């Protein structure tokens, strides 16, 4: 079985998913060859955990690419091996049924099935998570949030669930709650640079959306956002999202205009545009910023000096340009970036260049 099936990247891009699912016929045929009768099969069967992880990932890829028949076969193999009552198999079966469900009614019956299972065994975490995902898919974010909060009350050390909760809150524009959830994720995985960067993004969004009339709060939010980006770069060199955010946080000269990108899709990093720029304009507006904004009672940090921000911005610009250039040239070691993110970074750089021309 191919390496990408056994150990896939955390978020599988569509192209890779397609490639994985295209291997399905070959793998499934290979493994369903003639097998010896029971006592002898024990001797020949080489059973490794990787086999089953491979089947699981293959099934997920097949479901994504619409190859329901292969997914069914994978599911049957897993069921045969681990039994109907295995929690993980139950969740996978639920996922399969959700994928092949024709209409809203079918989804609702699956949902009732989940409720039944949970009534019998409330500790079945995979099924609880499926239930939340199903609620989200049925476009009931409020219910999904409630279910997820219930799950987290029982199991507050689940980083995945906290991150999901942060996303759910963000779709409902509840920034403070989203930030709280991300803080919980960070408490569990303190060195997750992507979460640090995500936190910076949400802090940026929230301070622009909620505090636009209060300079002190706005500045505090932007400062923390900038520092989050710094931390994410500190943890992971050449992290594109971190540099992107760092460049954005530098304040823009005209600071009141750019509110419109905030309403767009939150998963793209476009709205992150002008954080540092904002920060700069704010800092230059208040002549003596440091003592005013620092609140020793809460231990908030004083905003950084103008020179630091400028230098950070220069650094971010240079680094982004390097990443874009090297990625375009296809240099080895620089090709792991998400294409969309590189394009966005290039666009951000381009915008800056235009302004200088003017």
């Amino acid at each position: 079985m191919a390496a990408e099936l056994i150990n896939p990247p955390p978020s599988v891009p569509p192209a890779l998913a397609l490639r994985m699912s295209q291997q399905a016929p070959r793998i499934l045929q290979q493994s369903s060859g003639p097998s010896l009768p029971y006592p002898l099969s024990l001797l020949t069967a080489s059973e490794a955990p990787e086999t089953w992880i491979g089947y699981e990932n293959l099934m997920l890829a097949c479901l994504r690419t619409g190859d329901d028949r292969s997914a069914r076969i994978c599911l049957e193999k897993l069921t045969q091996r681990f039994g109907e009552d295995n929690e993980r198999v139950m969740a996978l079966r639920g996922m399969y049924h959700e994928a092949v469900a024709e209409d809203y009614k079918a989804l609702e019956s699956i949902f009732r099935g989940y409720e039944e299972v949970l009534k019998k065994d409330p500790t079945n975490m995979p099924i609880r998570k499926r239930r939340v995902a199903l609620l989200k898919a049925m476009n009931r974010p409020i219910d999904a949030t409630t279910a997820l909060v219930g799950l987290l009350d029982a199991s507050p050390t689940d980083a995945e669930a906290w991150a999901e909760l942060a996303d759910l809150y963000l779709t409902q524009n509840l920034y403070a709650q989203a930030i709280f959830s991300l803080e919980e994720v960070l408490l569990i995985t303190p060195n997750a640079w992507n979460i640090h960067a995500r936190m910076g993004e949400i802090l940026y969004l929230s301070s622009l959306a909620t505090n636009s009339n209060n300079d002190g709060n706005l500045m505090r939010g932007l400062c923390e956002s900038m520092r989050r980006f710094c931390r994410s770069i500190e943890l992971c060199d050449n992290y594109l999202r971190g540099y992107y955010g760092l460049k954005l946080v530098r304040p823009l000269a005209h600071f009141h205009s750019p509110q419109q990108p905030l309403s767009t899709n939150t998963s793209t990093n476009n709205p992150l545009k002008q954080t540092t720029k904002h920060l700069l304009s704010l800092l230059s507006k208040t002549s003596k910023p440091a003592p005013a904004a620092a609140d020793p009672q809460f231990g908030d940090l004083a905003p950084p000096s103008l020179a630091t921000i400028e230098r950070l911005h220069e650094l971010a610009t240079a680094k982004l340009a390097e990443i874009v250039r090297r990625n375009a040239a296809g240099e080895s070691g620089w090709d792991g970036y998400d294409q969309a993110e590189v394009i966005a970074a290039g666009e951000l750089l381009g915008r800056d260049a235009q302004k200088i021309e003017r």
Partner: protein
Amino acid sequence: MILTGILRHYAMILLQSAPKKQTLPQVRQQRSLMRAINLRNNFNVISASSFQNRKAFMVQAFKDGAFLADPEARGKPRPNPMTDPAMMEGMMGMMKGNVAMMVPQTLIMGWINAFFSGFVIMKLPFPLTPQFKSMLQSGVGTRDLDVRWVSSLSWYFLTLFGLQPVYNFILGSNNAASQVTQQMAQMNQMPGMGPEQDPDKLFLSEAENLEVIEHYWILDGVEDRLLAKLT
């Protein structure tokens, strides 16, 4: 002998009782405690105000026993472990393991004793000092016998201890065939078997740990660190 080892391995697997499932409140209790420990270890990733909020919440909740699996049992002394059915089950599991280990051992030893004691089985092709006599000639009471002769009983012990790699090869590395590792495992288990700690006490001590933390923020001065590193 190898066959006995393999048999024992499979008998152990058969006799193993699956770990008991925890109920939801127990899961909650355990993971809430974990959460507090996480907060204690990784407090520096969040801001001081967030940390204070969390600390205040957790300390209060722990003192009220909000996360306890059964709040009624709070403050009562622990029941005798012998009367606790869950405890008994654990003991039974251990007993089964022991029996599965003891029975074949006794049988083989009896068999070996009955048939092989008192005579030598092989002669080593190299000379040895007399100190090896007790190791190689147990069960043979002759003082003047050359050390190079190995009695059957000694040979049995030697192979018993030397078979571990063979079992590893046949059964995979985590097998239950060799009693040497078994005994080691039991030694390690013993302290864990002691009376389980009162969750309420754990929570209270964790609350104290949280109280004494002096907060610092990892984001403090991160921009300067970054600039120093990259330029």
